[in-house]
Every structure is written in structure tokens, then in C-alpha cells.
């Protein structure tokens, strides 16, 4: 009980920001910046005023929100698996790393909006395209962090492995992966928010549904409050996903917090 109260207390910044936002938008009177009360009202009307049987989701939400979320989760998970595996392989093999790093640094600097049409010619329209785009966009920070993490494993850990003839596989799973995990988790934490961004971006081109598509329509109709509901929705999603992620991380990195005496 007490922990719940203290947890909520830590959210003090949200009401403060909301009030400041409300006041400043009301003062500025700029059409582009509706006050949060208007946005929240629209958010409710647009997405959450559905029947109780549908967990209050409107048809609009079911049509646009759920597919987006599905792709988000699948794309993120896929990207993380691919990127961690590739990052560790490259981090542990100087040859592979030298051979592939120019290509990696090349591709991660190309703006996804320029590449999505090219993906589209291969995947067609729809979920495969969005998944590809999410995987592509999300992989880089995870890949880079895993690569660096796997590359700079304390030498003595590796020497210990060699001395005791620990097999390559165990070395990877029991030593290199945990040793790199603080850095990998940094990459994953970045990637959670990035996945949301890529989810939106991927729905800007060659898509006919999803939050991004809804945002695109709102943009071309200049339906400002709806544009803002999408932004707020993303923020809320980011907040929730991050909280879930931190729980998972706490669980996996218990040793690290103990060894590093953090919190």
C-alpha cells in the first residue's frame, strides 16, 4: 500500500507539467497548440469512448491502435533478437566487425523515410513492410550497444574462460552476454521508445491503418487536436512500455545493482 502511494508520489511532475502546459497554451491561444484538456477530451472521444465490452476501445481504436501495437511488439522483439545476436557476434570477432562495420554505420545513418519505399517494393504493402521498417530502425542502438558491450568485456573474465576451457557457447551465454548486459540494456531502453517512433514512421508510407496512418490523415486534414492525441497516446504508451521494461530489467540485472551498489 505504502509503496503504491510512494510510487504515485513520484509522478508529481506530471500534474505540474500538465498545469503549466494548460496555462501556457490557453495564454498563447495558438491554434496549433490546443490545451491538454482539449486533447484529453478528444483522446477519450476518439479512442476510449467505446463500449465496456471492448474495454472501452472505440472501433477506431480497435482498427488503428491494436494493429499498430501488435506490430510494435513483434517488430521490437525481432529487432532486439537480431541486433543482440549480431552485435555480440561482431563484438567478439574482430574480422567480422572490420568487414561489416562500414556497412552497418552506413545503413544506420540512412533516414528510414528514404528506405521504406525500397523495402516496400520487396515486402508489398501492409504488416510485413511495417515490421521490416521497425526492425530496421530499432536495431541500430541495440546492435551498437551490444557490439561495444561484447567487445569490451573485462579481459580477466575472458582469460578465466580460456583457462578453464569453458566452451564457446557457454562463454557466450554465461559470460559475454551477462558482462555486456548493462550496455545491452542501455540499447534496449533506447530502442523501446524508438520502436514507437518507427511504428509511426512506418505507417506514413504504404499503410492504410494504424496510429501513424491516423496521424497522417489528421495532418493532411489539419485536424490539430487529433494530431496531438496521437502524440499524447505515444507518450503514454512510451511511459507504460518503459515501466514494463524497467521491471524486466530490474529482474535481470539484480546482480549488477548489487555489485555496483546502486539503489
Amino acid at each position, binding site marked *: 500500500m505504502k509503496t503504491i502511494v510512494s510510487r504515485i508520489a513520484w509522478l508529481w511532475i506530471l500534474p505540474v507539467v500538465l498545469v503549466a502546459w494548460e496555462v501556457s497554451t490557453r495564454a498563447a491561444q495558438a491554434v496549433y497548440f490546443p490545451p491538454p484538456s482539449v486533447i484529453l477530451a478528444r483522446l477519450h472521444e476518439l479512442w476510449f469512448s467505446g463500449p465496456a465490452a471492448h474495454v472501452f476501445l472505440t472501433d477506431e481504436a480497435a482498427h488503428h491502435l491494436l494493429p499498430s501495437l501488435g506490430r510494435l511488439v513483434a517488430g521490437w522483439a525481432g529487432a532486439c533478437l537480431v541486433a543482440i545476436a549480431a552485435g555480440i557476434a561482431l563484438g567478439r570477432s574482430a574480422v567480422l566487425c572490420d568487414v561489416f562495420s562500414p556497412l552497418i554505420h552506413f545503413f544506420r545513418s540512412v533516414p528510414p523515410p528514404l528506405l521504406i519505399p525500397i523495402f516496400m517494393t520487396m515486402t508489398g504493402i501492409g504488416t510485413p513492410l511495417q515490421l521490416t521498417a521497425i526492425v530496421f530502425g530499432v536495431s541500430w542502438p541495440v546492435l551498437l550497444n551490444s557490439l561495444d558491450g561484447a567487445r569490451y568485456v*573485462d579481459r*580477466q*573474465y575472458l*582469460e*578465466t574462460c*580460456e*583457462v*578453464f*576451457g*569453458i*566452451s564457446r557457447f*557457454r562463454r557466450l551465454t*554465461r*559470460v559475454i552476454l*551477462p*558482462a555486456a*548486459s548493462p550496455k545491452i540494456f542501455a540499447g534496449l531502453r533506447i530502442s523501446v521508445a524508438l520502436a514507437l517512433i518507427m511504428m509511426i514512421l512506418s505507417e506514413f508510407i504504404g499503410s492504410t491503418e494504424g496510429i501513424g496512418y491516423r496521424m497522417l490523415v489528421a495532418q493532411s486534414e489539419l485536424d490539430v487536436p487529433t494530431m496531438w492525441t496521437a502524440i499524447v497516446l505515444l507518450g503514454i504508451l512510451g511511459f507504460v512500455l518503459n515501466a514494463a521494461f524497467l521491471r524486466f530489467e530490474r529482474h535481470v540485472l539484480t*546482480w*549488477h545493482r*548489487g*555489485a555496483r551498489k546502486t539503489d
Partner: protein
Amino acid sequence: MLEISDLTHSYGAYQALGGVNLTVAEGELVCVVGPSGCGKSTLLRSIGGLLRPTGGRVLVQGRPVEKVPDDLAIVFQDYSRSLFPWMTVADNVSLPLRRRGGDRRSRDTAAMEALEQVGLPAAAGKYPWELSGGMQQRVAIARALAYKPALMLMDEPFGSVDAQTREDLEDLVLQVRRSSGMTIVLITHDIDESVYVGDRVVVLSKSPATVVGDLRVELPEPRDQIATREHPDFVHLRAEVGRLVRGMRSGGPAAAETGAETGAEAEADSPELDPATAEPAPVAPKA
């Protein structure tokens, strides 16, 4: 088991090993002593295949060391960095045992046994960072012992434990050696210890290190903390080793030639000599 000939190693411009020659027979326990920073750990790493020496040869079981030889264990000097903080103590000890085959159950039993031997049965479920320095060091020893290697390299393995635990661990090493017949190279700073546990004591000069003394220890077996240390040969040998080490430090090993007497530590420093002209001390006549 182990043949080292003309082994040299330089870190950049700095020469740490200046031509080390050493042979260790199967089942022997050789102690290496020498001044701080002389190159003992470097020598150990070369034997363990963790360092490619810049010159000379190391043969383990007749094969030149290119990579880490099979069936080897090392207790690192920097033990705290060689335990994995993400695993419990028991997992740290049992991890290498996969190599030995056997199921999980038998590995766990072997790990527990080794932890009991070093006096840490209660620490099995803890993480290394929850242990004191000496306890961590003992975990590192337990890991190496549980592994039962053919060749064990120990770099100051008892440096962080109290006197009594140290004696127990010395006896433990002797007992394990007796029962499994493993070959052991043990680096130590404690001259008494080197004489007590070693079949031979090898003395290195300051760096570039060379072997300046190689004394055979012929003390009655099995050794015993009380009886052995009271044995006149023990007292004589430790004085001799002390003199060799000391000689190295302040110059040449010439002083080692002066007769042995009890209380080596009480002896005055040997006169300053140019190490370049000094001859390596001969193997002690006692051998």
C-alpha cells in the same frame, strides 16, 4: 610436464622476463618467489598461454604452448576480477566443471565439496560481491580445485587470508596434490610458505627476471604445520631462500653463498652488486 627454455618477454620496450629456464616434472609442486614486479605473473601467463612471449619456448606435456593448454587451471592474483559477479559462488565454482562432463547434480556436489574444503559451505548461494576479500580468494581456489586440472598455476593464492586459514589452505593444496597427482606452480611472497609446500623453490631475480636459485626441498612427507616448520632443514632452507631473494633485491646473488643460519630475515642486506655481472646462484647443495 613443463619445460621452459630461454623465455623472454617484453611489454613494449620494457623487458620483464630476461631468459627464464625451468623444468617441472609431472606431479611436482614448484614454488616461485621473487621481488615484487619481477615478472612472476608474466611467467605464469606465458605458461598458461594467455600471453605470447616475445622469445623462448614453453612446452607443456611436450607440446609448445600456442593457446591455453588443456587441463589447466589458474588462480589469478587479481582474484576479485576473475569471479563472475552475475553468478552465485556455487555457479562460479561449477561453471568450468561442464567440461568434465557429468550431470548437474554431480557438478553441484563437486562444487559444494570444494567450497567445504576452503571453509565456505555457507557462501554457496551468495554472490561474489557479497563476500570479503579473503572469501573471494578462497572461492577462486575452490574453483580451481574442483576442476582437478593436470596443471595448476596459482598466483599468490593465499595472500588475503588470515594465518590460520592460510595454513589450512596450504595443507589442502598438499593433500589435493597427493591424492590427484596434479602438477602445481605456485607463486608466493611468503618464504616460509614456499619451503613448506614446495618440492622445489625457484627464485627469480628482479626484472628482467632470470632464475637465480632453484632449491630442492627435501622435507619429510607428509608435511605438517608443526613438525615440518620445526625441522632443521626447513629453517635452513627458508634462510637460504630468504638470502637469495634478498640478494636479488639489493643487487647480485653473491650473498647467497654465505652459510645458512636461522633467522634469515634478521640478516643484513648483502652488498650492492651489479646484477649484470652477478652469476645465478647454484642449485642449493642440499638437493
